């Protein structure tokens, strides 16, 4: 390796570590004023990045060139997060919730981003996954690991159930049908006695792997990490898997067909595309992702109630996809992380949360409807 590439590699690693340090510092501050200062600094960096063409192209080129090194360093930094935050388990909790919402956003991305089906029933699939695995765990002592698959599958079935009436409707009316579905699930969860009614289901057992329960602190390399770290690593793997699946689906005939349906449905029909099948496929895959996230949520918190799966959750996930980027897999993850971390840091503005979500949606749709990170052009290898 020649001197130049070593310097470039060091530069890359330094930049990544610098960002990591900034992120950690941002998370650790408690003072609202300092948090705002950090945020403004990040926004300033973002604008600088956008405007300064040469620097941006050079940096992006560098990352492209040393993709593997950048990826490895990034993953190592993520793995180090629980170690860094071991004195404040609350911050690890935020990361876990961000990961859960990232999975939900990735699922919704198939519908909203790829196919332009505005689905407000994410909370329903989230809740169905959670309740299914919770009920099976509490009453039938089903272990967490098959619970993930079962929770996802049952949610997927309900996604199919939702998809069928949606095929008869278009655009706004389809959104109304999904909102109605979400509300129906919410009301049923409150009113059925076997789901625990408004009191929900308490005492959901924690997952355990090789005898180690996830509710216990993780002892590793002499460090005693808070129990949230168990779930952090689990979520890390799940988000990685979700990204993998989403990326592969996007870069395939299926993803291209979904985009065609989004662009022009009639022309898509005339190209031999079975629009109904592909839309229902999007519904089912979205619901599966939601179910998986719901299962992890149920076993993480240990207690679920219908309030956790109200309409507002769907709105938040839709906002994440719109903010992050329609049909950009990494964009929606960043959108999810932003919209989970920022409300937690700005607890002072808790009352204005709904208002801020609304402002974000309206602003993004007016000025940048494709999201912060728009869909990337598909490039094919010969």
């Amino acid at each position, binding site marked *: 390796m020649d001197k130049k590439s070593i310097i470039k590699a060091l530069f890359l690693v330094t930049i990544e570590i610098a960002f990591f340090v900034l992120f950690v510092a941002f998370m650790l501050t408690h003072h609202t004023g300092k948090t705002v200062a950090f945020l403004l600094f990040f926004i300033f960096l973002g604008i600088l990045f956008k405007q300064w063409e040469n620097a941006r192209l050079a940096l992006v080129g560098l990352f492209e060139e040393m993709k593997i090194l950048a990826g490895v360093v990034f993953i190592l930094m993520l793995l180090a997060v629980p170690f860094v935050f071991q004195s404040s388990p609350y911050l690890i909790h935020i990361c876990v919730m961000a990961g859960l919402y990232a999975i939900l956003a990735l699922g919704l991305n198939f519908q909203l981003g790829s196919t332009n089906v505005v689905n407000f029933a994410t909370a329903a699939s989230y809740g169905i996954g959670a309740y299914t695995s919770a009920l099976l765990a509490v009453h039938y002592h089903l272990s967490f690991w098959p619970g993930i698959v079962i929770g996802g599958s049952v949610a997927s079935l309900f996604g199919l159930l939702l998809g069928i009436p949606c095929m008869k409707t278009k655009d706004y009316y389809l959104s109304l049908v999904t909102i109605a579905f979400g509300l129906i699930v919410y009301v049923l969860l409150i009113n059925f006695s076997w789901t625990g009614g408004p009191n929900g289901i308490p005492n959901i057992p924690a997952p355990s792997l090789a005898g180690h329960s996830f509710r216990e602190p993780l002892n590793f390399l002499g460090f005693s990490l808070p129990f949230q770290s168990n779930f952090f690593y689990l979520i890390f793997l799940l988000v990685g898997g979700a990204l993998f*699946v989403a990326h*592969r*689906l996007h870069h*395939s*005939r*299926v*993803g*291209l*067909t979904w*985009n*065609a349906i989004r*662009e*022009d449905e*009639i*022309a*898509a*029909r*005339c*190209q*031999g*595309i*079975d*629009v109904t099948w592909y839309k229902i*496929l999007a519904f089912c*895959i979205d619901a599966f992702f939601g179910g998986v996230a719901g299962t992890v949520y149920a076993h993480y918190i240990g207690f679920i109630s219908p309030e956790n799966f109200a309409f507002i959750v769907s709105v938040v996930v839709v906002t994440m996809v719109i903010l992050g980027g329609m049909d950009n897999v990494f964009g929606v993850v960043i959108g999810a992380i932003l919209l989970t971390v920022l409300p937690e840091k700005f607890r002072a503005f808790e009352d204005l949360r709904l208002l801020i979500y609304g402002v974000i949606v309206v602003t993004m749709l007016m000025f940048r409807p494709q999201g912060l990170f728009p*869909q990337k*052009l*598909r*490039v*094919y*290898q*010969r």
Partner: protein
Amino acid sequence: MKPALYHIRFRARFVKGQRVKAEDFKTKDITDLTKPASLPLPLDGRVSSVFHLIETQQLTIHFGGLAAVNEVDFHMVEGEVVGLIGPNGSGKTTFFNLLTGIYRPTGGFIRYQGENLVGLPAFKIAKRGIARTFQNNRLFLNLSVLDNILIGMHPHQSSNWFDAIFWRRYTERELRTGVEKGLALLDQFGQDLAENCYRRAADLPQADRRRVEICRALASNPKLLLLDEPSAGMSPEETEVLMGDIRKVRERVKGIGMVIIEHDMMVIKGVAERVVVLNYGRKIAEGTFDEISNNEEVLEAYLGREEKDVAA
């Protein structure tokens, strides 16, 4: 209730007023026929079968009280180029929409290679080999040119969501093959298109968009190509290029049948072997270009009739 139509093999047909026996149509090779040359078929060996590529009988669609297409009989064989003309609003695009399954007819039959098309959803009809372009150019605007062509190949590809996640090599191989074929197809219609295949379709000028749309229609290897006003808004030079493209398609795709809706009579005269004229949804004339250009009803439809008596 109309009786079911049988295939041409089992039913006697009338051709230009002469009764022709069905048995005479059973031979596959057109040159075998000792039939009179009055058959409206191109007799230069291009046709491999005398069965109609597509035929409609008494095709009708009502929108409310209005019959947009009114009892139209239409037929064509493989390799034929038929022009479909008529004043605006005469039902030409509606006819195309009926053939491709976007509308469902309220009466009449459509047969494609002997198979009934009425009631089939549009995507199944497209899979059987009927492709079309649109009057107002429905490309997938936010996708690249190459993506548009790849979507055109959808009916002949088979990787599904499971393959996309787990059998990656199969999916990639199919995509690669598609990309090769797509670029070869684009190359035939203009090298600049193939070189700039990653341009967003919305950034293309109108003439290029038309060509990409024709390429997309051809990407699915259709047997019947329906072109809806391909030369609308084009300058005379661009129209010449278009006519060249149409002839190129005929040469390179064996046996493809084309129906072209046009308002520009130069295009019709240049490429169409037979012309069908619609007016207010009804077929008012059929024949070669010279025949219909002297047809009184056709002239009246386009130019109007002189008022003989005007009440004072």
